Each structure stands twice: as structure tokens, then as C-alpha cells.
């Protein structure tokens, strides 16, 4: 893999990662936000592979995109799914 191509892949990866992160922060639906966050982790684990860190990539893929996402979904199920910006909620 030559240097320019490597750079292009890295750039593309970071753009996707940041787009996913922004979308996750802006989403009103917390479940969707959690899934987008798992996407960020998944791309991050590709970035780890690109930076020659296979051990870290394995850990990030399984922890960041599987376990963190699932405990977030469990937590959202125990609370409430939608973020409302005006009055901060109240009992549903």
C-alpha cells in the first residue's frame, strides 16, 4: 500500500467517524445515537489496524462496538428513549 493511498483511506475513515459522532450527538433518539456510537467505535478499530495495533483493534471492536452499545441500549430501555430539549422531560 503506497503512502498516498494510505493517507486517503485514513482521511476517509476519519471523515466517516466524525460524521457518525456528530450525528450521534445530534440525534434525538437515544437508541439511534447509541448505534451510531457503536459505528464510531467500529471505524476506530479499523483505525487501530491501520496504525498497526491489532491487539487494541480486537479490544476496541468487541468492547466499543458490542458491549458498550448493548449496555447503553439496556440503560435507555430502563429510562426513556427520546431526548427533548425544551423542558427536559418529566414523567412519561
Amino acid at each position: 500500500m503506497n503512502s498516498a493511498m494510505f493517507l486517503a483511506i485514513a482521511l476517509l475513515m476519519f471523515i466517516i467517524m466524525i460524521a457518525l459522532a456528530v450525528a450521534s450527538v445530534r440525534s434525538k433518539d437515544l437508541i439511534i445515537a447509541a448505534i451510531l456510537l457503536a459505528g464510531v467505535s467500529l471505524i476506530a478499530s479499523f483505525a487501530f489496524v491501520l496504525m498497526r495495533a491489532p491487539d487494541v483493534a480486537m479490544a476496541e471492536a468487541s468492547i466499543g462496538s458490542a458491549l458498550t452499545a448493548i449496555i447503553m441500549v439496556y440503560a435507555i430501555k430502563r429510562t426513556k428513549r427520546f431526548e427533548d430539549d425544551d423542558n427536559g422531560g418529566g414523567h412519561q
Partner: protein
Amino acid sequence: MMERSLLQRSLPALAISLLIAGTIFLAFVEVGFGEAKVDEKDSVSNRYIANGTEETGSSNLVTSVVVNYRGFDTLGEVTVLFLAATGVGALISMLPDDKKKRKGPAPSLIMAYGGAVTIPLIALFGVYVFLHGHLSPGGGFQGGVIIATAFLLFLIIRPDRSTPHGALSLFESLAGLSFVGLGLIGLAVSGIFLDNVIAGFGNLGDLVSGGLLPLIYIAIGVKVGSELSGVVHSMRGDAP
């Protein structure tokens, strides 16, 4: 009106975050990547790369750093996970019960049978990963997490089954104590905690090599697996 107030609220936050990130960016660009560190004659990483395999008997240098050179960190890190698992379990149990039972949909046929086939395979893969931690990418953490993922899949396809909480804490305790115990062997033999006293044991690249290192990684794998399973299980709550 609404939009404007939202913007007003997040503008200072945006400015602060850009300021912090920008400063860190400039500093890190100044420092650069790792060329200088790895090539410097007496730097830590240079020595690990040059002598790591010989001194610890592990082909995977990350493993030799995690378990041997910086084994004390790893002990602390397993403790962090232990505290989190204990804390999550205890705190969840203090919460008032849900009014509505969260009865999820029953798993579909494909989920149920697919899971039944894949769970043993995933668990086996987890064991493989932590057994080969000193040879290939992976190790105790990754293996433990993979086992926890298998457990998670089990929770999803059999939501009605109650899980053996006692067994989880038994594994957790025993694995933690064996980690400390393996460290104390070093303290007893050579006066140094976590000393890999039989580092030269076995041939480099064999499964049975690396002295105490694979044993410690097995303990870590079991501990991480049982703790993360405990966390996931407590977060889900009891079966309806």
C-alpha cells in the same frame, strides 16, 4: 426562537472544545509519531523491542508489556473492572422495581437456533484468544470480552433463563486471587512482586512457553469474562 437559544447555548461549548482540542493538536503535531522514541538507543520501547521476546518468552510484544513489564498496571486494571462489576451489581439492586415489566419479544427461530450453534463457537474462540495471547494478537482482555459477548448472546436468545450469579462471582474471585497469587510467587521466590520467575520455560513460539505469562493471561481472561458478563447481566436486569 427555539433554534436561536439552542445555538446560543452550544456556541460557548463549541468554542471551548475547539480551543482545547486545537491546543492538544498543536502540541501533538510538535511531538510527532513514534520514530524518535523507538529508535532512540536507551528508550523504554527500544529495549522492549530488542529484548522483549528473550526476557519474557512472548512473541507478542504488547503481551510482554501488558503482562510482564507493566503487569502491575494490569493488576490495577483488573481491579477497576472488578470494582465496576461489583458497583453496578450493588447499585442496580438498590433501584426501585420497574412498574412495567420489560418483556422483550421472544427471539425468532433463526436467532434461537443460530445462537445455539454460534455461542459455543464464540466461547471457544474467546478461550483460544486468551490462550494464544503470547503468540498472536489478542490475550486475556480480548478473550474475556469475547466470552462476555457469547454470554450476551445467550441472554438475548434465552431471556427467560435466570443466570447463575453465584458461579460468576466464584470465577471472578478465584481468578483475581490467582492473579495476586501468581504475583506473590515472585515476591516469595525472588523478592519482587509479579516477577516472571520461569520466563525461559518452553520454546519461543510454542503454546507452552513464556513461563507464568500465559497463566496470568488465563486468569485475566476468566476474570474479565466473568466480570463483563456480570455487568451486562446486571444492566439488563432480572429476567421477567
